[in-house]
């Protein structure tokens, strides 16, 4: 990782967490995790079902507290009782099915809710809600509607707007594409990309689709049975197909095609993870 020019924003040191501790159902979800996240990184966390991904990101805003070790956000321990409000504002956490957590009469009120809770004066609230709605592509008509009248994709945007309106420095998302159709997914990932580029928002997300991870994330962390087993750039992680496969994960389909081609055409670069890069690489080598 590029450590120069960047600050450590979240630091996990020897973090372990067990669900239903001291009961017969105890399940160790995180096993001595050590990770540092730097400002303006775009990180994807991948891993098979039950590898600890959701548990890990719920530690990042203090929703879960580690059994051992510590989680520091901008140097502040998440166990520090006085810092909870500050923590939740700095780190915006979007749950997997955030679209089912809308509860207000109108979308506008739902987005405004967090601002009221944080005593933001009324005259500032309106502008912030409108700006955020615009950023995620919700119309005035959407804002006046009941959350229940929105489509799945619009609901997700409304839920994310409720987090973004608080201007988090770090945006943490648990499987943001869950329940969205392909077009809705593309739109959402474009919004996240814009936040990352324009607002310099640090993005940490859990994702299942290797195609999406390959397209957007600069750093990829692989979890397996509560441990970090891989952590690196796209090349470093997707380059190791054997290990990924053994962990029940996969590489993008286009990467597999390039790897197959490389066997008979060694001049090709097979460190390719998106369709547009594959196209460029093939065009370079095609017989004219």
């Amino acid at each position, binding site marked *: 990782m590029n450590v120069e020019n960047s600050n450590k924003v979240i630091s996990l040191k020897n973090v372990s967490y067990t669900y239903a501790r001291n009961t017969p159902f105890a399940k160790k979800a995180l096993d001595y995790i050590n990770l540092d996240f730097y400002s303006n990184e775009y990180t994807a966390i991948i891993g*098979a*079902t039950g590898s600890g991904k959701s548990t890990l990101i719920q530690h990042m805003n203090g929703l879960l507290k580690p059994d051992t070790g510590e989680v520091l956000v901008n140097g502040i321990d998440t166990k520090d009782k006085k810092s909870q409000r500050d923590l939740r504002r700095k780190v915006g956490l979007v749950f997997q*099915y955030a679209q089912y957590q809308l509860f207000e009469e109108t979308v506008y009120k739902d987005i405004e809710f967090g601002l009221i809770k944080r005593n933001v004066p009324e005259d500032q609230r309106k502008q912030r809600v409108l700006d955020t709605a615009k950023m995620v592509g919700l119309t005035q008509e959407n804002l006046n509607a009941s959350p229940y009248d929105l*489509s*799945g*994709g619009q609901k997700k945007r409304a839920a994310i707007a409720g987090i973004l309106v608080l201007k988090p420095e770090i945006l943490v998302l648990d499987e943001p594409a*869950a*329940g*969205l*159709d*392909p*077009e*809705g997914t593309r739109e959402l990932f474009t919004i996240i990309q814009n936040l990352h580029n324009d607002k310099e928002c640090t993005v940490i997300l859990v994702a*299942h689709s290797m*195609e999406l991870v390959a397209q957007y994330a600069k750093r990829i962390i692989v979890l397996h049975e509560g441990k970090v087993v891989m952590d690196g750039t796209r090349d470093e992680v997707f380059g190791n197909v054997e290990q990924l496969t053994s962990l029940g994960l996969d590489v*993008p*389909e*286009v990467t*597999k*095609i390039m790897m*197959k*081609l490389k066997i*008979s*055409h060694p001049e*090709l670069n097979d460190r390719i993870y998106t*369709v*547009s890069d*594959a*196209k460029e690489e*093939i*065009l370079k*080598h*095609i*017989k004219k």
Partner: protein
Amino acid sequence: MIEVKDIHYAYKTQPETTKAVSGISLSISKGRYIAILGRNGSGKSTLARMLNALILPDMGDILVLGMNTKEKGNELPIRKKIGMIFQDPDNQIVGTRVLEDVAFGPENLGYERKKIIQVVDNALNQIGIYDLRERAVHTLSGGQKQRVAIAGVLAMKPACIILDESTSMLDPKGQSELLAVTEKLNKEEGISIINITHNMDEAKFADEVYVMHKGTITLSGTPNDVFTNVDKMIEAGLDVPQATKLLYELEKEGINIKNLTIDENEAAESIGRLL
């Protein structure tokens, strides 16, 4: 087995009506595995609800095993034949324990106790969740709950099972478990499956795929026929496999790609010939 003849449906909410399905005809034969692909709001769930008489078409007719969904008295026999699995695993479980939930349907059919036990045990075995029978449903994973829901439908001896976005709240493991069960029921029991989804990976294995867009069917055929029609898939807001997308992009650059395919190996071979 199912005949759909030029059906139309609009949601009548004040002050406006929203047209959800406008003129769909299709015919589903026994034992087929069908995928209906479409964006959120394309009308695919409305179609599904009409197939088992939860709602009735404004115009046109649907015949299930010869029974018109519009005729009074046909609803129950139709729903016995066409089971439906919904999106949210928590919204379709009625029992506290797995056994009770699966027994709910047969109990309501008035079977005697011995027969209920037999039907339920068979269903649990077929789905591969017999070991979960004593478990409280709320302790199960989403994928397990959906399989309990399928066992409940199976205990009614259906001819067809409709999955209405049933995998969209499941993680990849739950998704593949559920799909494996539907494939098994299709192959071994000859039960027709209609899988309504926006996930193309689930449609790749179907016998036939229908693509819905704005209330009509814009594409239909084998998975290969449908996914290689990239322009129409994009128009419908759907994805195509990366293999197909790559060939399509190369073709747009003037490269002569003879056959678009959804198969990764075939794609690699046809590109290899050009290098």
